């Protein structure tokens, strides 16, 4: 038992740079495959929340293809939570491209009896440890997993993928305050800042800007990147060295 209330330091830089480079290169080529599967799925009648999934695919590839496996090299348990559960097209095409589920199975997406639920359900597919779909709840769950490390001493890090529209939910900010108050440096929130939510542009529906300042004012360290695989990889690497919760804001490429 630790139970001393001390902040948990991140375990960064413990593995060889070569191990990380190998992961990056293999994930990067699998991502090409995922994009092909994604466009197939989008054009064959199974398109669902395509925009949300399109902007989430790079993030999902980095979290599940690089960041989590790299944790194994570092001796830390890493978890990825898809708080914006409606980005399931991106998740499932990534899982198929990385051979975690059969490519054939994508045909069952959204069909009765499929494990590929519209909103991912816990333990039905690899890597998904909690069911999501109702927005605003992932960050609280991430905090709980992070707090467990303080109690049982097992190193854990959690990356939670949030939509920008999702930030309208008050619970996100309840959880943001909890993470900074408790010094949960092992939590990283990745905000998919695609500027769009269900009925239109985010700034028309309910303004999110100045978004970086909002997170900073809640005691978070903010890293802003463009929506590219490489920039997201770099952001999560950088986040590892920060002694506070980190928000990675992933903005559109152009």
């Amino acid at each position, binding site marked *: 038992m630790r139970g001393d209330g001390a902040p948990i330091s991140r375990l960064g830089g413990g593995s060889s740079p070569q191990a990380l480079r190998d992961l990056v290169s293999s994930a990067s080529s699998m991502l090409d495959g995922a994009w092909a599967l994604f466009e197939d799925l989008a054009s064959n009648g199974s398109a669902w929340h395509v925009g949300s999934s399109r902007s989430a695919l790079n993030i999902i590839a980095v979290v599940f293809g690089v960041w989590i496996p790299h944790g194994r090299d570092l001796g830390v348990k890493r978890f990825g939570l898809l708080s914006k559960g409606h980005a399931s097209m991106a998740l499932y095409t990534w899982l198929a491209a990385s051979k975690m589920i059969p490519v054939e199975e994508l045909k069952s997406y959204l069909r009765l009896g499929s494990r590929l639920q519209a909103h991912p359900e816990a333990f039905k597919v690899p890597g998904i440890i909690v069911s999501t779909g109702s927005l605003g709840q992932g960050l609280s769950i991430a905090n709980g997993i992070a707090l467990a490390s303080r109690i049982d001493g097992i190193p854990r890090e959690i990356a939670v993928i949030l939509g920008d529209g999702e930030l309208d939910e008050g619970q996100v900010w309840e959880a943001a*305050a*909890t993470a900074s108050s408790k010094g949960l440096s092992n939590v990283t929130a990745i905000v998919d800042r695609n500027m769009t939510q269900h009925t239109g542009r985010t700034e028309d529906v309910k303004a999110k800007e100045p978004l970086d300042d909002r997170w900073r004012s809640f005691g978070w360290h903010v890293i802003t990147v463009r929506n590219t695989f490489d920039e997201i990889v770099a952001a999560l690497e950088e986040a590892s060295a920060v002694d506070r919760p980190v928000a990675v804001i992933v903005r559109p490429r152009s």
Partner: protein
Amino acid sequence: MVVFESYRRAVSSILLELGERLEDLVVLDADTGRSTGSLAFGKKFPGRYVNVGISEQDLIGTAAGLALAGLRPVAMGFAMFLMRAFEQIRNTLARDRLNVKVIATHAGLSPHIDGASHQSLEDLALMRSIPGMTVVSPADFNSTRALVRAAVEDHVGPLYMRLGRDNAVHVYDNEDGFRIGGLRVVRDPVDIVIYAVGPMVGMSLEAARILETRGIRAGVVDVYTVKPIDSATITRLSTRTILSVTVEEHNTAGGLGGAVAEVLAEAGAGRLMRIGVHERFGTSSKTYLDLVESMDLTPREIAAKIESALATVGR
């Protein structure tokens, strides 16, 4: 004579004991620890106590995360405000069958001074509607201690426990014989059977004593597990009596009255009268008993209602 005990003192004392034994027990609260009694745990085990502030939705999500990591969280708060997190309880705890115990205090009319905003009369109905949710409502001090112990130590999966404040009417002299999923026949039914829950078990026992003086032999059953309800026992007892009655400090829709009505209607097991709070909210009251009386839930009023109902069913 009803004797009052404290639900929160009961839960507070047993959590301290469990904390000694169970290294994975974590208690969370939404800044109500002073009132729920969880703060005592926090003082003794500061490393395993989490106050998330006044944010019940965040409370449930955080507890879910702790359970996912393999710990044994108990999330505490006021019943009324935990219902803000109905959806988190439904969508995360219940859907993923996480091992989180939600222990609500200040349920029903127990926060008598606070008034309608704090008096939760719908929580049993909400929690009972969730698939796979276990719903427990102990009667008094000893049964609260026994059932918190059973819930935390033996029960794996999501569970909602409904407690009042300091309005536990004494029923049991020891902590023996309670189990999650059970009920307890406290007084054997002959003519009629009263199914009661929470503080209304003690009130109903007193009502049964009043009825006895009028020649009516009423039994009392403590239905401390509201879900899954022991429908076999309820059907058996109701089949051999001429009237079934439910008594609860809750809206009669969807709570114990609803649960027993479902059982009896499907079994064709006789007539039911539901006593509780009918289609209304609470109100501030200087004393708990004044409030209970205004809702017609004192032993005298329970007995009177049963007596007049009996006149219509015939004996």
